[in-house]
């Protein structure tokens, strides 16, 4: 049951985060900051070809470099057959993962790892890498989605037959699967429409862009017990994936999480850790591996490039009668783009009777796509929200009005299946409508764009432990790496339940040997699901505290209440006892039964879906196509903001990433399939001077299934900005761009074309 009581003491305040001082002083240990005595340095050799068969690999010259202690190639990793590729019901294909981590018979993208070495110095390791002799048979490659889907496209995997089509194909294809979600009858719906807008869009692959490159240290003792220190979004994920890839038992690997310098989904998978372990095993020494920035771009998954078609029909009143989209997403070298999630999320903010979404997962010669903040959703939302903007303009309806007319609400059946429970989409539209941003007058060459977005948010397996220390201070132990300030929220929630000052509650992120299993940090789940576990563990502690007080007073536990951080008799009938604080009870723990500690291990369900509505003002320089973002407001239903500053931070950070995606970020390939911009110079993320202040508006429509009403917040913010920016540019110039990024050469070209058309 949700506690909608307004009298929460700590929840909603803004204490200083517990790990903050270490982070502002440089003391915090991130993945690359860790060292072990006797450590070697590992480096990876990468393919320079987008697609090639490996005829042979000769590592003898590399092995002969002074200081080199071990060299590995794909043959050093156990083979995982297709039958063994999946573990349980999880979607990870471990055969593909193993082949991604070290190529086997083929390299499938520029940057694909082919070998790794470890040596006593980085310089020796780098020299050894340059001496790895790989004989390649270069094959034709394909890097664009449409090209990969073509009849005569070079095939990446001979065994792939498109799933989800009828009849079952017999020839290999780069189209891995077709998925479909539908409700009602879209053809009938379009017939009923007064206006139909249909557009085709393209978006480019963008990288999560975390500032910290992947890094780890792996150590194996002679008896095979391994320890890995690494920054990742889930130490249990690292443990499980490494165990599977190396063919060892899970209990033989312990993963200790370092602080993580950004993930956004890009660190929900392993690249270096299995290699470091294999090298540590072969050399008998600990091995440290750190990626360079170039390796991060070339050899770790960005998100998918996409081609999409969106068609929406509406009555002149603005009521949508049918909505359809076709999405084609590039998975990279191995199957598994987030196209299904795109299909499920694109139309989710709307209450639609007739809706159909079809998605194609396509492999091509690029790094295997990895999750990026609301994977699959931003591209689909770009198309949908841009078409809605055109529809609004054509029908003469305000963009917010059009959305409000069709907004999903409690009870709406989403296109992807479930009925929404309590959601806050309308509330974000109302907040947008009344926001002062809309009152700011626009000048010449300026335009305002509006867009909405949705993300499911997830729950998942989560564990927590709450220990009462001998002096009455409290330790909250949870498993999830803190990528956005979640530690502070864990402390806040525990403090709220226990009724103590938040400063008395210390949160720690524990390693795989010190806390029970937890799904990784992602899916906007930590504050919701791990928070739920923390609350349950803290409540467990409260029950124990009541029982201990009861023992001390020699009354029944039912006669004890826990209130304001103290145990009290429930009434004068129970007895006339002075209240006992946590410290009082902790001091007597030994004689009342032993250490006081609570735990919770759950599989949290009931995550509340999140909705956002963004408003973006831009100014366009008509002579150069340069776009300046003047003003940005991000409004989101956050359920309940446990620590409002960090919730605002999620909205602002996601919006900034979306703005970059819309305007300047893209993977650029040359004709030979080589990545042209594997660095921050030419992979252009927004810098401080590119952005205005981002007004983050937190709308709180509590999620009924969380004790404090929490909804996940981290992913929604990146979903609306692509269209918010594109719609703003469209309104500023009268020219709509359907291809992202709206970089100046593209926009200027479009403006010039329109100018010359007008002149004709």
């Amino acid at each position, binding site marked *: 049951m949700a506690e909608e009581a307004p009298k929460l003491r700590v929840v909603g305040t803004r204490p200083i985060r517990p790990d903050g001082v270490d982070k502002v002083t440089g003391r915090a240990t991130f993945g690359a900051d860790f060292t072990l005595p006797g450590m070697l340095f590992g480096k990876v050799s990468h393919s320079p070809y987008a697609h090639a068969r490996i005829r042979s690999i000769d590592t003898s010259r590399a092995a002969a470099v002074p200081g080199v202690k071990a060299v590995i190639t794909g043959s050093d990793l156990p083979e995982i057959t297709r039958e063994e590729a999946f573990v349980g019901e999880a979607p990870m294909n471990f055969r593909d993962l193993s082949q991604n981590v070290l190529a086997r018979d083929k390299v499938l993208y520029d940057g694909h790892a082919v070998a790794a070495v470890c040596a006593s110095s980085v*310089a*020796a390791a780098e*020299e050894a890498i340059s001496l790895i002799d790989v004989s390649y048979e270069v094959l034709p490659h394909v890097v664009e989605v449409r090209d990969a889907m073509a009849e005569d496209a070079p095939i990446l995997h001979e065994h792939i037959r498109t799933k989800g089509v009828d009849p079952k194909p017999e020839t290999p294809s780069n189209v891995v699967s077709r998925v479909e979600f539908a409700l009602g009858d879209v053809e009938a719906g379009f017939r009923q429409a007064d206006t139909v807008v249909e557009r085709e869009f393209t978006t480019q692959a963008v990288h999560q862009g975390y500032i910290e490159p992947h890094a780890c240290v792996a150590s194996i003792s002679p008896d095979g017990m391994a320890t890995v220190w690494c920054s990742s979004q889930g130490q249990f994920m690292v443990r499980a994936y490494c165990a599977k890839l190396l063919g060892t038992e899970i209990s033989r690997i312990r993963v200790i999480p370092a602080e993580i310098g950004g993930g956004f989904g890009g660190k929900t998978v392993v690249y270096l850790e299995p290699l470091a372990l294999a090298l540590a095993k072969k050399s008998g020494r600990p091995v440290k591996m750190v990626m360079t920035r170039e390796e991060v771009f070339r050899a770790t998954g960005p998100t998918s490039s996409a081609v999409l078609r969106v068609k929406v029909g509406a009555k002149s009143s603005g009521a949508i009668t049918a909505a359809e989209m076709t999405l084609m997403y590039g998975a990279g070298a191995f199957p598994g783009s987030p196209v299904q999630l795109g299909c499920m999320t694109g139309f989710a903010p709307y209450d639609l009777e007739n809706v159909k979404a079809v998605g194609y997962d396509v492999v091509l010669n690029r790094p295997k796509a990895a999750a990026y903040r609301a994977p699959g959703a931003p591209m689909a939302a770009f198309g949908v929200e841009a078409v809605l903007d055109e529809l609004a303009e054509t029908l003469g309806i305000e963009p917010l009005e059009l959305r409000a007319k069709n907004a999903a609400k409690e009870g709406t059946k989403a296109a992807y299946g479930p009925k929404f429970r309590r959601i806050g989409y309308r509330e974000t539209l109302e907040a947008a409508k009344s926001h002062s941003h809309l009152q700011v007058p626009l000048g010449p060459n300026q335009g305002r764009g509006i867009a909405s977005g949705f993300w499911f948010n997830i729950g998942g397996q989560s564990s927590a432990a709450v220990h009462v220390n001998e002096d009455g201070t409290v330790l909250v132990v949870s498993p999830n790496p803190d990528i956005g300030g979640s530690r502070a929220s864990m402390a806040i929630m525990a403090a709220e339940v226990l009724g103590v000052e938040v400063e008395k509650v210390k949160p720690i992120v524990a390693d795989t040997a010190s806390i029970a299993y937890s799904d990784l940090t992602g899916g906007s789940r930590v504050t919701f699901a791990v928070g739920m576990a923390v609350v349950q563990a803290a409540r467990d502690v409260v029950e124990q505290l009541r029982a201990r007080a009861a023992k001390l007073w020699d009354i029944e536990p039912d006669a004890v209440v826990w209130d304001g951080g103290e145990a009290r008799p429930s009434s004068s009938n129970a007895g006339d006892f002075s209240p006992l604080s946590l410290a009082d009870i902790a001091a007597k723990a030994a004689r009342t039964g032993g250490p006081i500690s609570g735990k919770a291990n759950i599989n949290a369900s009931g995550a509340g879906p999140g909705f956002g509505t963004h408003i973006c003002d831009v100014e366009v320089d008509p*002579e*150069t*196509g*340069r776009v*300046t973002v003047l003003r940005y407001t991000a409004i989101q239903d956050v359920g309940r903001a446990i620590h409002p500053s960090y919730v605002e931070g999620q909205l602002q950070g996601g919006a900034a990433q979306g703005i970059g995606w819309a*305007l*300047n970020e893209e993977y*650029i390939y040359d004709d030979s399939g080589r990545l*042209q*911009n594997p660095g*921050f*110079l*030419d992979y*252009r993320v*927004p*810098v401080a*001077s*590119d952005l205005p202040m981002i007004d983050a508006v937190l709308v709180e429509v509590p999620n009924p299934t969380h004790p404090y009403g929490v909804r996940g917040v981290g992913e929604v913010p990146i979903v609306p900005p692509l269209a918010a920016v594109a719609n703003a540019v469209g309104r500023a110039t009268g020219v709509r761009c359907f291809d992202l990024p709206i*970089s*100046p*050469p593209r926009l*200027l*070209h479009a403006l*010039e074309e329109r100018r010359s058309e007008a002149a004709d």
Partner: protein
Amino acid sequence: MKQIRFAAPTSVEEAVRLLVDAGGAAHVLAGGTDLLVQMRSGLRRPDLIVDVKRIPELRAIAQEDGGWRIGAAVAGAEFNEHPDLPAVWPGVAEAFDLIGSTQIQGRASLGGNLCNASPAADSVPAMMAAGATCRIAGPGGAREANIEEICTGPGQTSLAQGEFLVSFHLPARAVGSGDAYLRFIPRTEMDIAVVGAGVNLTVDGDGQCTSARVALGAVAPTALLVQECAEALIGTKLDDRAMGALAAAASAACRPIDDKRGTVEFRTKVAGVLARRAAAIALERARSN
């Protein structure tokens, strides 16, 4: 593994000796903001690094012949903090200031920017427009050269083996003259120029342009000093017609490429736009001078 040697000479002569003895395997280090990146990527593999920052002439800023002599290793931040120089040559100052971030400005030098010979180097069009010269030291002694003689192609200079850049000279600022530099980048900072335009002009009491130098960057293998652009301005009052002719001449002079930063079409168009805008600013400055 090759071991790289390092030397930090304290005189020009010592530096020349080191460069000559290295037989072409040495590289000069000033700010290092290009060299270190290139060494890391394997593009440059010097056997010897010659750090010239301890040579007094390379770090000095002083008035000379009514103009200014600036050491080739003076950092951008030092240049722009100078009490007088930026006001006299604001176009050169803003061009230099545009190179990279604040951190890069703490190190990057005019000498490095020129000798790295990137077609998109920001300071070069402004220095060309200013009519700056450079002093080069080498085994044959010192010589002076115009900026436009130095870059011969992307990453290539006309400096002979054993030669290095010691200092620059900016001429005296004439009355009624002003300079300006604009560049186009997709973000607001941190990008390599997609197009750069430097304009230096002089107007007489009637507002008529009596001299002009216009240089374009990032639109050809080297920065271009475009005579036709100057001719479009000289003898005019920089009215709309003259500005239109200037823009057309700038676009016509472009020989750009399509690359990851811009297209031929884009660079050609924007060269004209920036030339015009830079000329307008230079004119403003000239009028108030």
